[in-house]
């Protein structure tokens, strides 16, 4: 059975801090790993990672994948209150059309 484990489950930081969110996985046939950000409504896509060691970057957010150790990290530098959200990690299942999601990390950024 495919497994996606995110840590920590929740995190409270002050504005300006840097945070690292973790996603470890066990899947039968790895194809990709996706990160989503969910504020009050729909999850929105952040990154899709397929290759080890290649950093994907978007502004203050970056993510990297380690296919040998089976994990990914999402970094957010100089956090702002607008970064407060649930961050979700997901992987496609082997031979199927569905994504398996982790339980998410709830990030709260306080002024």
């Amino acid at each position, binding site marked *: 059975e495919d497994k996606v484990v995110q840590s920590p489950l929740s995190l409270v930081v002050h504005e300006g801090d840097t945070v690292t969110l973790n996603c470890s996985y066990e899947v039968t046939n790895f194809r*990709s790993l996706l990160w989503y950000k969910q504020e009050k409504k729909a999850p929105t896509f952040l990154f*899709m990672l397929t290759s080890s060691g290649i950093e994907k970057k978007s502004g203050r957010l970056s993510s990297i994948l380690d296919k040998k150790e089976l994990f990914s990290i999402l970094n957010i530098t100089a956090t702002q209150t607008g970064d407060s959200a649930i961050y*979700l990690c997901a992987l496609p299942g082997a031979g199927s059309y*569905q994504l398996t*999601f982790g339980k998410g990390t709830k990030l709260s950024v306080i002024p």
Partner: protein
Amino acid sequence: DVKVTQSSRYLVKRTGEKVFLECVQDMDHENMFWYRQDPGLGLRLIYFSYDVKMKEKGDIPEGYSVSREKKERFSLILESASTNQTSMYLCASAAWRATNEKLFFGSGTQLSVL
């Protein structure tokens, strides 16, 4: 941009009622999904469909059914709503090519069953 529209943002129903949640996407995607999201449990897949009139059970299909009569529309049906079906329901769609397994989500329907 892909748009996935869910018909209701908030819905309150009584135990035993039949409930329809509607989802429409405008990008001609083959694949559509229904998830529910509960605190501490994350997103769990209820049903998905990879073509018109095709459906597959996800991880928690019990108490739900679905309908896909047209490519753009995927409906989730609660035949007889129960209080344990109180949840946030998220619809998603995807083109689902091997190089792009990105889901696009609707804004969600918060369903309360009293």
